[in-house]
């Protein structure tokens, strides 16, 4: 029986464990940084400072937030369904962390004489893995909203489900163009396929569609209908508090980081810098992190700018504009690739 997916290069088991811990640790460290960066930048975009009281320049603010949330009582409504209510945030956080595993931060340099891949695992089905996990991630929101036993949570969860269906399709189709051009599903090989030119240039339409769909996927403004504080109090996480709310919050921001990583890998050439052929291997992770930072800043910039869409606008935009565009993009890319490579 042939396996469904193969792994390109894998190290000894103990290196894999160390790598897993390091990636998890880095992922955990990035989230508070994104938290404070978002609040500071949002402030700047609105002509104010943002948090600047806790620690130097307010940099310890996320720590204070997390400590406050974790110190709170874990309560749940009488109408909620206990096991699902507890399970839901765990699903959200688990899928976010799992997606983080396949983002490549570099190739396979030799560290202390051992060949180590700077990624969790290099699977031959990279984008499929991402989509599988982001589809599961919505179970976190949906179960959370359903199990809370509250109308606001329920409405938020329904919106989240509708949003998933609308935007997952477009996002997938937007990536097909990249995959056709690269001819591979392995994320490291996709990065190497961009050695001549980043895919943002030939796949600009795909990139824009992916970006818009990414906002919807991560439940960020202007597609944050699932939480819509103004109408739904907090959407699916209305009834959550304390550590469970912190998990949802954590998952949301980690998703932003992960989507930035995916966009960097697929469209901005991962760790590659055009015209720099003698790039030392130790710079790779920093180049990736820098490009991811640009995306995160763009996410925050958009949040500071655009108002939330109405529900029907969201739906008609997803189905009537994004999906046809993504289909057209895929079609044209396929024709061009066939015409050029015969």
């Amino acid at each position, binding site marked *: 029986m042939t396996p469904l997916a193969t792994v390109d290069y894998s190290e000894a088991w103990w290196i894999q464990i160390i790598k897993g811990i390091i990636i998890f640790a880095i992922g955990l460290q990035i989230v508070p940084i994104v938290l404070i960066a978002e609040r500071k930048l949002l402030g*700047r*975009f*609105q*002509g104010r*400072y943002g948090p600047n009281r806790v620690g130097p320049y307010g940099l310890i603010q996320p720590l204070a937030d997390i400590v406050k949330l974790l110190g709170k009582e874990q309560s749940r409504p009488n109408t909620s369904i206990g096991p699902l209510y507890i399970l839901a945030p765990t699903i959200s956080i688990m899928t976010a962390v799992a997606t983080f595993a396949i983002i490549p931060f570099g190739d396979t340099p030799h560290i202390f004489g051992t060949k180590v891949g700077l990624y969790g695992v290099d699977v031959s089905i990279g984008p499929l893995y991402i989509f599988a996990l982001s589809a599961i991630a919505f179970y976190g929101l949906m179960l959370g909203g359903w199990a809370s036993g509250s109308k606001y949570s329920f409405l938020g969860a329904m919106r989240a489900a509708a949003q998933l269906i609308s935007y997952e399709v477009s996002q997938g189709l937007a990536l097909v163009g990249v995959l056709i051009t690269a001819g591979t599903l392995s994320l490291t090989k996709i990065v190497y396929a961009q050695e001549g030119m980043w895919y943002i240039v030939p796949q600009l339409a795909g990139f824009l569609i992916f970006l818009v769909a990414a906002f919807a996927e991560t439940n960020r403004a202007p597609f944050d209908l699932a939480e819509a504080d103004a109408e739904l109090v907090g959407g699916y996480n209305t009834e959550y508090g304390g550590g469970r709310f912190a998990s949802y919050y954590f998952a949301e921001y980690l998703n932003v980081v992960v989507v930035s990583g995916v966009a960097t890998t697929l469209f901005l050439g991962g760790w590659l810098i055009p015209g720099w052929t003698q790039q030392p291997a130790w710079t790779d992770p920093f180049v990736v992190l820098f490009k991811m930072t640009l995306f995160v800043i763009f996410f925050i*910039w958009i949040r*500071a700018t655009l108002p939330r869409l109405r529900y029907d606008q969201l739906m008609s935009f997803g189905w009537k*504009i994004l999906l046809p565009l993504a289909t057209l993009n895929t079609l044209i890319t396929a024709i061009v690739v066939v015409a050029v490579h015969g």
Partner: protein
Amino acid sequence: MSPAPGSAARWSPGDDQIEVQRAPEPGGAGGAYRAFGETLRGLKTTLARVIEGVNTIQYPEQKVAVYPRFRGRHKLHRFEDSGDGGGQAGLEKCVGCSLCAAACPADCIRVVAAENTPEMRVSAGERYAAVYEINMSRCIFCGYCEVACPFDAITMGHDYELSDYTRGDLIFTKEMLLAEPLDASPLRAEGE
């Protein structure tokens, strides 16, 4: 627009007619294009706020300067030393006439007057205010007391940080009103 035949008497809007400029209908390729352009314009607007800088005044450290006629916490005054050896220097201006209390719409001033004696001369007039209290939790800072005072004994100062933990602490006594405020609020410069 020509009137329909046979209806010459029909009223024509003429100069009163206003052409309303309407945005193009949303939807379609043009709508998407315009939406994209407007999004970029919005991004430009928010980025301009970053470049413009921060407008926040960090309140406890920085304070907004008040105008000279700002009505803050009241002050009671004494006669200053005029330098000519006059006997009035250091005496309170308030003569305990209670006109301020009568003028007060919030009824927050309480004055109890007493007679000056040669041994204990407090004010320049015949009588003085033995008790002069302003309940700051009731005061609406209208400044009528200042207007009513015939001797300019009470004026509105510039202090606006009056919060306290108990209501009792908000009843300002004569000694508190006579004393200079601890930290005077910054005053706005001329023409600022």
